[in-house]
């Protein structure tokens, strides 16, 4: 790699670099079904040997990805050319200047048709620090047979209370992620935002001044929903350890009813049908709607996820890296990635693609959901905030009306350095 860098220096200004002297850009990717590696190859080929992108795999869970990236960035690693970043962790990396500024022309060319939710998640302190690549959002998935039996009109927005009642009456399990992991924060944040509250009121404040907005009606309502699902066994016995994957498996079983989850489940269920491990009738029984409302009169604020692309401030090939980023996030690549890897595009144009519309009949719902979606707290201390929520809100059965206030006190004590996490 250093050889490539030296080569790049020698050949500056020289147009026809042969393959051996092509600078190598390292792209740290989150695990996927191979889509990013494919894009890396295509962009390298399209670059006419100006650069060659190599991918390096990050851990499976979001916290693990952040851990690896933060440690490398803090170490001033020069190979941090391109990074796939989970939006909640962007402020922590942007604040100490680990991320390179997005050049104006790149900002212009990559953000024109990006949906509002994902674009907001790409900024820190009002400045664009990363470029949205794909955007995820959770939908409410349901078994049409169960909804029908419960007499729910799924064409109308439904509330958490309604689906909880339906699951209780039909003696089925609700699919929610109750394990002590990032997915718990996703759920809690979605509930609080849907109820009109916010976990962190002043996300840009320094550590000792962060104010946690958990002593609110919205947070108490969220605690009531989580606690009731836990205590009444509505999430099934697996709830305290349930992840996105295990809830999907439960949803596909005879116990399935309603589930909040990311769109990957649709492609995964289709694949399972093909493997003969899930019945075709189950697949056909799946319906979708916007994330449930907390307040029946207020639209919900569905969870927002996805991946943004950033460039390391210590990268030796920043200009080339941004050039590569422009290629990576092109609407065609986003549409293609959506179809092949099941990860929804951040670009509005991708939703016009016929292939997308065919593979994801719920594309309209996804786009609508992305417009309504609320990001998780954008603070440099997100890791602390999220870990504290995960600890205080699990197992779900232990959540009471005191949980929000305890969480707020806990987070504030941790951020002041008075308490361990």
């Amino acid at each position: 790699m250093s050889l490539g860098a030296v080569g790049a220096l020698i050949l500056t200004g020289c147009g026809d670099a042969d393959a051996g002297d092509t600078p190598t850009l390292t792209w740290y990717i989150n695990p996927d079904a191979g889509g990013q590696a494919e894009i890396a190859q295509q962009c390298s080929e399209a670059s006419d040997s100006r650069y060659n992108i190599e991918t390096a795999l990050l851990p499976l869970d979001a916290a693990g990805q952040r851990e690896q990236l933060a440690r490398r960035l803090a170490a001033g690693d020069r190979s941090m050319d391109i990074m796939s970043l989970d939006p909640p962790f962007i402020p922590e990396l942007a604040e100490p200047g680990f991320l390179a500024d997005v050049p104006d022309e790149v900002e212009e060319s990559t953000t024109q048709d990006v949906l509002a939710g994902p674009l907001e998640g790409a900024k820190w302190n009002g400045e664009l620090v990363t470029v949205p690549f794909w955007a995820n959002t959770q939908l409410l998935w349901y078994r049409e047979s169960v909804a029908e039996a419960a007499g729910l009109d799924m064409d109308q927005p439904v509330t958490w209370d309604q689906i909880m009642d339906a699951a209780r009456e039909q003696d089925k399990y609700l699919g929610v992620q109750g394990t002590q992991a990032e997915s718990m924060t996703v759920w809690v944040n979605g509930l609080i935002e849907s109820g009109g509250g916010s976990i962190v009121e002043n996300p840009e404040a320094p550590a000792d001044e962060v104010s946690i907005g958990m002593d609110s009606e919205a947070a108490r309502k969220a605690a009531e929903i989580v606690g009731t699902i836990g205590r009444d066994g509505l999430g099934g016995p697996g709830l305290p350890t349930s992840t996105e994957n295990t809830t999907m498996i439960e949803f596909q079983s005879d116990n399935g009813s309603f589930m909040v989850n990311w769109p990957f489940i649709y492609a995964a269920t289709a694949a399972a049908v093909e493997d003969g491990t899930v019945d075709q009738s189950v697949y056909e029984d799946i319906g979708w709607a916007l994330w449930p409302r907390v307040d029946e009169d207020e639209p919900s604020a569905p969870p927002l996820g996805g991946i943004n692309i950033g460039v390391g401030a210590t990268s030796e090939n920043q200009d080339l890296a941004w050039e590569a980023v422009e290629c990576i996030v092109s609407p065609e690549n986003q549409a293609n990635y959506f179809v092949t890897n099941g990860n929804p595009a951040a670009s509005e144009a991708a939703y016009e693609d016929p292939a997308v519309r065919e593979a994801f009949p719920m594309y309209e719902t996804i786009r609508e959901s992305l417009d309504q979606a609320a990001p998780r707290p954008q603070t440099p201390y997100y890791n602390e905030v999220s870990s504290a929520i995960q600890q205080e809100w699990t197992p779900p059965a232990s959540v009471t009306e005191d949980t929000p206030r305890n969480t707020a006190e806990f987070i504030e004590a941790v951020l002041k350095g008075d308490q361990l996490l």
Partner: protein
Amino acid sequence: MSTKQKVGWAVVSVLVLVYALFPVLSILMTSFKTPSDLTSGKFLPKEWVGENYSSIFVGTARDLFVPSLINSIGICLISTAIAVVLATFCAYAIARLDFPGKRVILTTALAVSMFPVISLVTPLFNLWRQIGLYDTWPGLIIPYLSLTLPISIWTLTAFFQQIPWDLERAAQVDGATTWQAFRKVIVPLAAPGVFTTAIIAFFIAWNDFVYGIGLTSTEAARPVPAALAFFTGASQFEDPAGAISAAAIIVTIPVVLLVLLFQRQIVSGLTQGAVKG
């Protein structure tokens, strides 16, 4: 031996075998299950499939598993080799030569083996990133020495004290220097002990997890135990229990082979010849 006793021994032996092998068998079964079969709640696979193995060698998990397997093998072999060579010199000196500080060396080895690995990871990480050893082979080989050196020194010292040293003296009387006596006479006698020590040291390096996750971040140096925590299904949310199990079985094969081939040596290495036969 009476029939009753024979039956008794057979029962006891079967119990011990079940104890020792059941968890291995359990994960072996998991490795042959299809994704839907994973949730069947049964011990045996409904149908036996090799797709988990093909996924780690030629399929989607290949880029994760194969490099980490090469890393594990390379890093463990090198750190074992270094540890055994250094420990051989060290143990020979302790067993045979008269010099002050022997006890200090043995006590240090003991203390080092008691160190909580987790206490070493963060400072090593900070140093490694400054000097460029983070996420490289040497960056793991060096800390692995803290695991493999102490046990090698102790085991070898014990081995060397069993060697009939009169032979060495005889060689010295014949005019050989201490060094020559060591090389010509002692090395052949010591070889079995050195070999045994190498196996035990290799097991310990092979088992490492904390250094593996703490001091690497890409396939450049990530060993298998750390890589197992990185496996993914078709999307980032799917849990690939089948592929993990298959990879777990693959890294268990060398262990089983070494145990089958060198059971006697390993036992004597661990118990130091206290058990005869």
